[in-house]
């Protein structure tokens, strides 16, 4: 293995095309390396391929060509079950529209990835969920149904859920895009705190330049290509 232990993710010449008759080239040869504990913003105009790239990194989608290595393993070699397991245990997701299960409580939503992985509920997973809800400031809302929480609270539950498996990488697609500026700031600060406290790497897709400026590294995509990759001091 040629990777240094710190390398979490490596993309080499990743492309993604959609359509069969009329082919749309969404990603055109992306090379990217992400190390453990990085706090990276993925920016770019609409249609530049940010979400597609995030889905490929999140093992939700497969590249048309190119190579994707996650924790040193070539993802193309994994079958469906292994991919799901790698995603479940290695990658957390925070979506723009919160994407919680409405029929479940905040605690149950946080526990979901653990439940799917272990097959049945146990005390330890409940404690873990409560711990995370405490960290996002929602200990008193643990038994509230997802639909009874505000937008900002739902996003904090989603953040807790993304961390419940203690993944080395969390992908956040516009995590503050649907929130007012105060809630957005709060959620962003939580991402940052988790990053610093647990050395969890974050890749955050955002349109917000001010938020991007608060990340360690900004990768700017234009027309499916990396236009710039800037490292900056954390704020």
């Amino acid at each position: 293995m040629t990777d240094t232990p710190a390398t979490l993710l490596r993309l080499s010449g990743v492309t993604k095309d959609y359509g069969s008759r009329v082919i749309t080239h969404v990603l055109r040869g992306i090379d990217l390396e992400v190390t453990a504990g990085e706090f990276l913003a993925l920016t770019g105009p609409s249609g530049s391929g940010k979400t597609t790239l995030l889905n490929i990194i999140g093992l939700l989608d497969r590249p048309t060509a190119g190579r994707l290595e996650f924790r040193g393993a070539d993802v193309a070699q994994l079958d469906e079950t292994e991919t799901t397991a790698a995603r479940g245990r290695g990658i957390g997701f925070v979506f723009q529209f919160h994407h919680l299960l409405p029929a479940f409580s905040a605690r149950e939503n946080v526990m979901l990835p653990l439940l799917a992985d272990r097959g049945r509920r146990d005390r330890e997973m409940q404690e873990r969920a409560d711990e995370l809800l405490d960290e996002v400031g929602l200990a008193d809302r643990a038994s509230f149904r997802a639909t009874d929480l505000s937008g900002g609270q739902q996003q904090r539950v989603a953040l807790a859920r993304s961390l419940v498996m203690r993944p080395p990488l969390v992908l956040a697609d516009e995590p503050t895009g649907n929130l007012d500026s105060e809630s957005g700031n709060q959620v962003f600060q939580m991402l940052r705190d988790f990053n610093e406290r647990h050395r969890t790497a974050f890749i955050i897709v955002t349109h917000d330049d001010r938020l991007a400026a608060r990340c360690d590294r900004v990768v700017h995509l234009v027309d499916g290509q990396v236009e710039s990759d800037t490292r900056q001091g954390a704020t």
Partner: protein
Amino acid sequence: MPFELLIALRYLREGRAQTWLILVGVGVGVAVIIFLSGLIGGLQKSLVARTLGSQAHVVVRPREELPRLLPTHGGAIVESLMERPAQRVRSIVQWQHRLADIERIDGVTTAAPSISGAAMAVRGDGANAVTVRGIEPGSYGRIVNLDSLIVRGRLDLDGFKAVIGTELAHELGLDVGNRFRLRVGTEQEGGTSGVYTVSGIFDIGNKDLNARWVFVSLRVAQSMFGLEGGASTIEVKGERIYDAELIAQQINGSTGLVADSWMKSNAQLLTGLRSQNSSSVMIQVFVILAVALGIASVLAVSVVQKSREIGILRATGTRRAQILRIFLIQGSIVGLLGSAVGIVLGVGLNVFFSRIIQNPDGSATFPVMFDSVLYLRSAALAIGVGLVAAIIPARRAARMDPARIIRSG
């Protein structure tokens, strides 16, 4: 609780109106099956019971007498006209041995000797053609529960006592304790006659038999028909009523005697029961089909409604097989709960029909069968149908592309 069951239950609870609708749909389907089966089964059981309440499963009698050729004398040709002889009341040769042979046949529970012959019942100016049935109350009672059919007096055949039907009692103006004469053959031809006291009056639910049958003791019938120590028929009861024909064939094969099963004697009834069964099965098949389509369509809608959540589950590490199981479990639960609703509804309808709608004498107009095996079978069927109906929606859910769902928000 397993992860898949937890999600399936929560989805069913969440989609309240939809869940109730499908439960009621399955419930009505199962109720129709249970109600129909209970009604038809009860009707058939009552018909068969009524038929077998007055007759044995198999009746064994001697072979028919055949005409014999006249012997030829010294080669002379004797022209003869062959005529079938009139059948007399004859005893089965060595009936005690034959009875023991019959009782050894597999599936036979008991057998009893009897004598059956024609006579005239006379009282004053009234005379009725009757069938005298000589029986031993003990052994015959194990085949036909005559005691339970007595409506006045009691079953007492000691000496010259007789038990007659309600219709004959009415026609001859007889009641318990009255006397009447039984005449066999004519006096010119050496017939016999005797005076008998009515000890009991029976009603076996058949007007013709109530007018025709006169029960006396076997010993009395033996002397009445000149069959001292004999028995003209052996009546047989088997373990299972529908094995009667098989038993009859075995008796015929092993003893050479003529054996008629109730199924053969009541062929028309049996054909009726069979066609009733076929139509009931057809109705059940269509009901099951409708239930299956109902479950499948509701689950298909649910899969579409839940597609975003399926995407989240997949993104957070839920495997395809787990998604598949979530929807299969939903189908089975709908089947299970629906069948519970259906059993309650079906049994309720059956109770309603049997208790509320009654004949003037208090008996049920629609005799209904309550059968726990039927309920278990219906529940198993509904669960199976639910499971099968869920296969297509479940596979569709499992095949969903999480990236596409999440992309579309």
